[in-house]
């Protein structure tokens, strides 16, 4: 086993440990910071897989932007609630994912080697904007919709009681029908949905 693979394995182990710390840390802020550390290490993993573009993206978006957002959200709410016991037994909480992943690993490993070394069909940019044009376009729309959604969620202070007061704003039917003799048995017996 050469040095390169050893470093690679170490990076992965480090990322996994950070991830473990992130989900087990009692404080939310600590948890977010461990997530950032896991992000940096996985960015290095991506770089070692000779995917520098994704490494940069992961470093800036995953480790940078998302961490800032997490810290912002945690500070915004001052919500450092103590950890409460999980809703489902710990055995299932750990056992189910473990079983699923061991089975997945058994299915995909060892990796099949490609019959002939495939030729690279294009650069990152041509593949993203050419071959995956629809995905990229949809993503642009998604980012737009996401921004609108966040704005809507954060600014909906006025409608806090939206859940309860819909009955007050109920509009009576403009043309109330004095139950004409209709032919077909209607669904009036059913409860409104």
């Amino acid at each position, binding site marked *: 086993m050469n040095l390169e693979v050893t470093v690679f394995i170490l990076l992965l182990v480090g990322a996994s440990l950070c991830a473990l710390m992130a989900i087990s840390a009692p404080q939310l802020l600590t948890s977010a910071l461990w997530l950032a550390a896991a992000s940096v290490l996985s960015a290095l993993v991506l770089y070692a897989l000779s995917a520098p573009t994704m490494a940069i993206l992961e470093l800036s978006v995953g480790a940078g932007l998302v961490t800032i957002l997490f810290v912002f959200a945690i500070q915004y709410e001052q919500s450092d609630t103590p950890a409460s016991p999980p809703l489902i037994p710990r055995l299932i909480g750990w056992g*189910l994912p473990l079983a699923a992943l061991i*089975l997945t690993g058994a299915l995909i490993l060892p990796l099949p080697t490609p019959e002939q070394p495939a030729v690279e069909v294009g650069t990152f940019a041509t593949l993203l904007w050419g071959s995956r044009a*629809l995905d990229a376009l949809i993503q642009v729309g998604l980012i737009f919709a996401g921004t609108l959604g966040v704005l809507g969620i954060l600014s909906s202070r006025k409608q806090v009681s939206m859940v309860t007061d819909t009955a007050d704003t109920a509009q009576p039917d*403009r043309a109330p*029908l*004095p139950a*004409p003799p209709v032919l077909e048995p209607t669904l*009036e017996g059913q409860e409104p949905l």
Partner: protein
Amino acid sequence: MNPILTALPILIPWIGALVIMGLHRTRVIHGVAVGTAILNGIGTLLLIPLSAEHAQLLIPAGQFWGTWRFSPDSLSALLSLIAAIIGALAVIFSVDYMHGTNSADLKRYYGLVLLFIGGMSGLVLTDHLLLLFFFWELVALCSFALIAYYPHNPAAAAGGVKALVITQIGGIGLLIGILAVGGTAGDFSFKALHSSALTPTLKAAVGFGFLIAAAAKSAQFPFHSWLPDAMEAPTPISALIHAATMVNAGVYLMLRFYPVFVDLPGWTDCLMLIGVVSVLMGGLIALLTDDLKRVLAGSTISQLGYLFSAVGAGAGAAAEFHLLNHAIFKGLLFLGAGAVIHALHTRDMGHMGGVRREMPLVFATFLIGSLALVGVPILNGFWSKELILEAAVSHAPGWITGALLLGVGITALYTYRMVRRVFWGRAQDRAPVHEAPLGMKIALITLAGGVVLSPLCLPDLGVVITEVLSAPVTLLALGIILLGAGIGWLRLPISLSKGMLQALDRGLGLTPLNRISVQLTNLSAEGLRGLHTGVLTLNLAAVVGALTLLMIILLVGGAL
């Protein structure tokens, strides 16, 4: 012209709907909705030159989706124009009809209407089967949400659910057909249907799947019972969606794919049979109800039956012409009925009467629409209905022609009855009413003008006129109309046979079957509600458990 203009009929209303979502004052919302709808009408007019020069809007969408093609031809330009122009008139009408609604409900109303208008244009313009399905379901969704627009009215909620479930049954047929085509031909464009990879069996499955979809969408015979229940929607919605546009989507599907399926054994016969039964069934529904809007709904079922029969008989051009005419005069009738209902606050014809003197303009326009519906000469309904009857005489079995002629008589009878009960007679225990407000007048007068003038759109009008006037079936049909109106004038006691007719309607109409399918859907949804704990952790645990199961199945399957 730039082919990108083809997208205008879809984009203008959608952008307008988005803008409306951000507004607050009701006046502004009304104004923006009317402006958008009129702008869309003008933008859609561009489809006429675009379709003449065979413009194509091509959007490359990756390997799986292929290329999205939006290309107007005469059929799609016609349907898109109907959606845009009647949509604009319905929106203008709504300014008065929805007067006094609060801004949140108004936003929902106009947003859905504009989303629908854009979706309808997209449905007829696209050349991609999956997009066709997308738009098909989009208009069904808008229709559902607008039928159930008054959610606190149980009848409206139930009507909306019924419409949704029954059109979904058709949607499944459409989806199966589309996936069968796409799976075998490897292509989702319309020309994939002509591909030689489709075996005759598969082609038959696709053809009848599309037929089910079209019948459910157009409220044709086994699926017709959702349309009368859909009349709980605000009346401009009934005029736009349930008379002029969405219910025509089924006819569009049949017209569009008629050349593909015409050779399937039994396909055209099935189409004609569905049409004829719907003509009679819709006529009976219209004859036997006291609810003004249900009369019009039954009449819509019946007129769409004529369209199905015409397509089945191979008279595509006559069907297109009657589709246009029906959209205009039925839109007019619904809007006129809406004006009356708005003034009187009731839909029961027993509580109307004598409106003629109080609302002369509504009366005049409604009368023009009624005469066109009956098929009185010079008005547009006359020409197209005679063309359909003529096609039936030359291409269909005799009994189908006979049934269609009987339908003409029933139409005259129920129309006479409707007009007499609403506008003649004396005002019964009700407050006096005034003439409709300005917005309603504009919409009514425009549509009445359309009823008179729409035959002038025909390129070969002279040929049609000589053809219709020289055909013997025209005289026969006019005689039957007189007979039907005469029976109405005599006021024969229909109530005597009402019980019998009711039984006929219930047995033949498969109403119980429709009701059971809706109730089954509701029941299964209710039954599954228990699984919906709303606790994130439990849901996720179930997801991971399912993943584990899937992996076990894959492993075992791989080992076998």
